């Protein structure tokens, strides 16, 4: 039995933010994650928008956490070195009659404490954003809106948590939780016993940050059942050629036609269009559909008519953890100690704006825990973290310095995003380092560019095998909840293959092979 003071279930942005905040105090913390890497759930597939905070109803947790999270993001991005840009956002409307709705949104935002909201005329919008449709009737401008690298944020939080002593257990799916036994006067004896991947963990405090599966975890300990419905959103990611079509994030005012599709630049200079919204039964189903990607394009073009579907470099989908509630007023984040499970905290229903809210949710949950389960402050808490240096973003001078320290920063592996061997090796050897192609991709962007890893994947496979000291046949694309044994890149050897014994992972063809035409 592994003993901890706190167990966090789920290593998405929320679990990682909470773990980091909790690690400011003297306590033993374990994060249990079923996937083989952090950031494999919803936190890897969303819009990456740091919302200003005008959408949620005043007084809700969503509103509070959104505005506070937005305010924290800039400082955090400097502390933990991840890409963030305050690019501002526009909610555009197409019918003059919608002005009331836009004004309502502005009033709501102001009630939530959003600064600087401003109604713009079409002309003012076009001055800022010349590629926006001539059909618009006006817009609400939010200067505090921003964009963030969703992987960058999540990974930074997790790495920093590790540095501050948090233990992460990857490939550890929680399958059972046994609440503490009740002794005389219902005093809890011992803590929650959590089973994950055949290992027993015990802690008096458990935090449920399991995303779309948070209902399953909650229902293991509470009689008051909750239900989370996965609400899928599909996207198209466009080539960097299209990246400057808009500078701010462009939302559409929800209308009779639906919730609207956003068009936004990403922090890396691509253009993202999406998401759709569709409730689905399967908590794992992140497949895209022909209908979805078509709709994304059609609706996106309403905002930016010159959008070119041929510039799509990939499409993907993510699942919102939509909490089903009886009230009709829409669901809120559920962040509380569960009434009939003392010491068990839900952080559930964290759909949008969960990414924005993550820094605030981390602080808030830490406060809840600190109050009920106090622990002394850590004298040596490390609040800063440095990211992997990026050759693509470096100036000539910085490149020169990086390369002179380590020549493998001159060996380009991913041509589309200019990612070098040095960056990939570092991504593998960091705390919670990459073990899969997708892990390398999320940490360095190798394979994220326009050729979508066609060129670099064999090279990245080689580097992974070499650095992890395994044969490349065991390298996988990703690891899902079953661990990572099934997403192999390679399935075996050709007939002419001969291993070169001592040279692990770097097998060569028989020297005669290239000369004979043996077909």
């Amino acid at each position, binding site marked *: 039995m592994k003993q901890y003071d706190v167990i966090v279930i789920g290593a998405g942005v929320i679990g990682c933010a909470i773990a980091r905040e909790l690690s400011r105090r003297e306590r033993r913390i374990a994060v249990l994650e079923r996937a083989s890497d952090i950031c494999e759930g919803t936190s890897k597939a969303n819009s990456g928008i740091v919302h200003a905070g005008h959408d949620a109803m005043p007084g809700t947790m969503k509103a509070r956490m959104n505005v506070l999270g937005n305010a924290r993001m800039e400082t955090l991005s400097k502390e933990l070195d991840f890409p963030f840009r305050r690019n501002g956002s526009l909610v555009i409307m197409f019918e003059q009659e919608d002005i009331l709705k836009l004004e309502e949104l502005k009033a709501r935002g102001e009630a939530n404490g959003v600064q600087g909201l401003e109604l713009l005329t079409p002309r003012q919008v076009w001055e800022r954003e010349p590629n926006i449709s001539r059909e618009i009737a006006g817009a609400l401008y939010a200067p505090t809106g921003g964009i963030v690298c969703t992987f960058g944020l999540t990974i930074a939080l997790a790495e920093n948590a590790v540095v501050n002593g948090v233990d992460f257990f990857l490939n550890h799916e929680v399958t059972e939780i046994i609440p503490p036994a009740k002794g005389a006067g219902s005093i809890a004896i011992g803590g929650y016993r959590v089973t994950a991947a055949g290992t027993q963990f015990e802690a008096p405090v458990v935090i449920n940050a399991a995303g779309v599966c948070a209902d399953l975890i909650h229902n293991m300990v509470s009689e008051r059942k909750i239900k989370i419905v996965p609400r899928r959103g599909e996207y198209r990611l466009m080539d960097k050629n299209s990246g400057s079509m808009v500078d701010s994030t462009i939302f559409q005012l929800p209308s009779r036609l639906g919730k609207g599709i956003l068009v936004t630049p990403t922090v890396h200079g691509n253009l993202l269009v999406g998401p759709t919204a569709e409730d689905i039964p399967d908590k*794992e189903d*992140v*497949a*895209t*559909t*022909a209908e979805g*990607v078509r709709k994304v394009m059609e609706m996106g073009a309403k905002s930016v008519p010159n959008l070119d*579907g*041929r510039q*799509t*470099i*990939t*499409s*993907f989908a993510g699942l919102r953890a939509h909490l089903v509630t009886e009230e009709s007023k829409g669901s809120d984040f559920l962040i509380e100690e569960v009434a009939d499970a003392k010491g068990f905290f839900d952080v559930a229903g964290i759909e949008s704006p969960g990414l924005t809210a993550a820094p605030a949710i981390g602080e808030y949950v830490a406060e809840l825990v600190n109050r009920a389960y106090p622990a002394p402050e850590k004298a040596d808490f490390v609040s800063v973290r440095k990211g992997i240096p990026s050759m693509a973003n470096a100036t*000539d001078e910085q*490149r*020169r310095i990086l*390369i*002179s320290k380590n*020549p*493998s920063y*001159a*060996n*380009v592996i991913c*041509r*589309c995003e*200019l990612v070098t061997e040095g960056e990939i090796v570092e991504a593998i050897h960091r705390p919670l380092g990459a073990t899969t192609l997708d892990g390398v991709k999320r940490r360095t962007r190798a394979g994220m560019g*326009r*050729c*979508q890893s*066609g*060129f670099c*994947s*064999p090279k990245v496979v080689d580097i992974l095998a070499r650095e992890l000291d395994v044969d*490349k*046949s065991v390298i*996988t*694309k*990703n690891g*899902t909840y*079953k661990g990572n044994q099934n*997403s*192999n*890149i*390679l*399935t*075996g*050897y*050709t*007939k*002419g*293959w*001969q291993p070169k014994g001592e040279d692990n992972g770097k*097998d*060569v*063809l028989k020297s005669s092979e*290239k*000369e004979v*035409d043996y*077909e």
Partner: protein
Amino acid sequence: MSRRREDIVIIGGGPAGLAAALAAREAGIRKVLILERDKELGGILNQCIHNGFGLHTFKEELTGPEYAEKYIQMVLEQQIPYMTNAMVTGIEVLENNDKCVTAMNKEDRLVEITAKAVILAMGCRERPRGALNIPGTRPAGIYSAGTAQYYVNMEGRMPGKEVVILGSGDIGLIMARRMVLEGAKVHCVAELRPYSGGLKRNIVQCLEDFDIPLYLSTTVSEIHGKERVEAVTLTRVDEHGVPISGSEWRVPCDTLLLSCGLIPENELTIGLGAQMDAKTGGPVVSEHLECSVPGVFACGNVLHVHELVDHVSAEAEKAGRFASEYVLASESKTCKSEVADASERREEGWE
């Protein structure tokens, strides 16, 4: 940072780059340098171990590596310098119209090379899945045919066992045969168009001889499988390429190879500000194969996708000659103002 000065820099050491270098040397240009990002010269030919190359140029049927080898030998004989593992990351036009090419490699680290002329010979890349917009899951087991060819022919590794191929271009056809010969099962080749884009001889020798069905007017409409590909849905399409609903069928497989077209690799060209041709995907060139940026020439697959390597070589020789003419003409001009020129260069710190 090291600096070099050349007359002509050639970007890409595939058949186009090699032939251009040889032609430039033959035209009397002394300082020619080939920059290649791969670990060896030869370009895409290195992984094309089937035969069918060189019928025009050498009047014999060679494999890709054999064809490349002939040019590499000539380059070595001519002692034309080259750098491998050297990725060119940018080209700039200097005030005096010289070009400054920046490259990176482990040994030489950052290199800046000034040259009078540049020949673009970067080849092309394959169209990836995203650009095809195939709906479904995103598991392992989806490769462009060229990536699969690299694993099989260069690394001796198999990327899958049960294969469906989308696209009937020559790379797809050749990979169908290759995968079968290496022990995989190739279920079919699906082609969106009502005809195959590949050579007739490849359809016969790579598909028919191996009883691999070719479904025309058919596409992959969905990919299934969470971790590794488990199946694909094939659908017939109408004359506009639109899937005909009700015509779907599911083919279990663990691998989908995509052979759906090649795109000239023109990031550097676009970065340089050269005018592009939307049709070919390459730069707009004059009859001298010169781009809209004077002194920058293009040849081979970077200009437009060629079917035969022999045509690439022939075109590249021309580019090499035209670039040489450009250099010689500019030299005779600079002779007059040589004194001024040299002092200027010293100030800038070149050489």
